[in-house]
């Protein structure tokens, strides 16, 4: 029941190597840009001359030179240099799928975490898709979404000050239930074709690009559609379905796997998760044993081997 362990300590063999005296940065850069190798950089490091290349995100121009402004990987696309940060806040783009939590309700909109706004005009109102918004709807906003609710939405547009505007106008978006939330750093979720993943163990995943992942019981395809009878009760209800024991175990297992993969900084895609799940089924022991350090390391080693 009680398990006491020790803290990890950093290895004792850190030493600061003396910087080489004559490093000619520009030459290296040109070579790199020709060959296309991997280069890590930190803010203030000069990358290349601004005459030949255009600057992108994560860089700025100073005295005819393109200089990095974040710590990260230098990427080059033809004549465009960008630096992609290693750990950063989620950068939204139009069309991104995100999972958010309502933090506040205001006059005809809901506020979600990290500066996003869901307008009343962007949700499906009961009574059909084309219904016009009425004033009584504004007063009853709480019957649709309350503070603390989780939902999946798509980024529709940006306001002038950078706030995102979301919409849940499609039937696959809306309130989330029958599951639990896992948080990972946002960069580990890449832009995929579809962010709705179905694992064979009756577990559905919604990978939000902001790092929130919703793991839930599987919803059958045909139950998701149904345009004619848009049932407001069902879509905005807070009640979960009955979830049986094997599904619950599977959800816990997937949650633990995602936590381990995120701790080891492995990007999450459906193939990675499927392999991880199958590997974990072969192991003995309970779901909670997955969280131990040695099992986690073994899992990561297997995944990397298969990937490479």
């Amino acid at each position, binding site marked *: 029941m009680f398990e006491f362990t020790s803290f990890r300590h950093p290895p004792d063999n850190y030493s600061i190597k003396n910087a080489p005296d004559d490093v000619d940065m520009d030459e290296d850069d040109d070579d790199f840009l020709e060959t296309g190798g991997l280069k890590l950089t930190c803010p203030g490091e000069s990358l290349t001359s601004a005459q030949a290349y255009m600057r992108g995100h994560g860089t700025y121009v100073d005295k005819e030179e393109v200089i990095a402004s974040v710590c990260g990987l230098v990427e080059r696309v033809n004549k465009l240099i960008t630096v992609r940060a290693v750990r950063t806040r989620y950068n939204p783009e139009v069309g991104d799928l995100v999972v958010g939590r309502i933090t*506040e*309700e205001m006059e005809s909109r809901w506020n979600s975490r990290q500066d996003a706004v869901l307008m009343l005009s962007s949700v499906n109102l009961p009574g059909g898709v084309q219904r016009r918004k009425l004033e009584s709807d504004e007063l009853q906003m*709480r019957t649709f979404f309350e*503070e603390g609710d989780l939902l999946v939405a798509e980024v529709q547009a940006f306001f002038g000050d950078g706030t995102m505007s979301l919409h849940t106008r499609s039937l696959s978006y809306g309130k989330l239930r029958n599951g639990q939330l896992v948080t990972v750093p946002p960069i580990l979720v890449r832009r995929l074709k579809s962010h709705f993943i179905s694992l064979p163990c009756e577990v559905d995943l919604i990978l939000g690009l902001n790092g929130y992942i919703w793991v839930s019981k599987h919803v059958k395809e045909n139950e998701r559609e149904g345009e004619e009878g848009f049932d407001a009760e069902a879509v905005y209800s807070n009640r979960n379905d009955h979830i049986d024991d094997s599904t619950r175990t599977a959800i816990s297992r997937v949650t633990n796997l995602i936590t381990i993969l995120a701790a080891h900084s492995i990007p999450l895609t459906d193939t990675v998760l499927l392999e991880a799940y199958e590997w974990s089924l072969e192991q003995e022991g309970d779901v909670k044993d997955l969280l131990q350090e040695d099992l986690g390391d073994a899992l990561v080693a297997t995944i990397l081997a298969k990937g490479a």
Partner: protein
Amino acid sequence: MQSAFDRRRINGPEESSPPVFATEALEIPSGNAQKTRKGRNTSDIRPIFLQPGLISQANGSAYIETERIKIACSVYGPRQSKNTVYSEKGRLNVELKFAPFSCERRRAPLRDAEDRSIAVAIQQALLSSVRLEMFPKSTIDVFLVVIEADGIEGCIASGSIAASTALADAGIDMFGLVMSCSAAVVGTEIWIDPTQEESNLADGSLVLACMPALGSVTSVWQSGRMTPSQVLTCIEACESKCTDIHSVVAQSLLDSARAATTTNA
């Protein structure tokens, strides 16, 4: 602070403390011999005087006296919450203040740590008894002033009784009245409703708050050293006392309600 460095006057010493008068001959505790309780049986509580409706401008109020403990309680609400966060259930806010003359040593008029501890204990006792789901977006404020104090446990117990009476006087929906009683373990005996002196002698003390009408406990507050069996004995003893106190409180509320209806009619 400036007065200490006032050169136009003759200043007193920088540090001074109030005199403590020894009125009765102080008895030196006689070591580990079993102490006997003076003036009461081990299972007697001090007589309670409870008067609801004393403060007319509050929505509800109550004044309680148990020998040397005197507490006045007033209830305001339900009022709209000032902060904008919406909450489905109402909020119960309990604030307690010791009057500067309430204890042997003068207490500063600023809020200090002990005020908040007792207020938190009273709030815990009352929290499950009020039907907060009937007051979304609202706050119910309970303000207690301790006019004379005699032991922390006694203040918590009497404060809870006063607050529950005041809530009933304010007409706020509740599941039941909250009664509270304290007990102390002195040697091998259990003394109910200890005074300050008695709880100084005790190894451990316990305050129980319950709703006798529903037979459920809303708060247990225990400190000091007690064996688990002593804890359970104290809880049972307090619970039976709470049932007795409940009839007293219910009677006084009915009397004041009757008085109010006869004056209105």
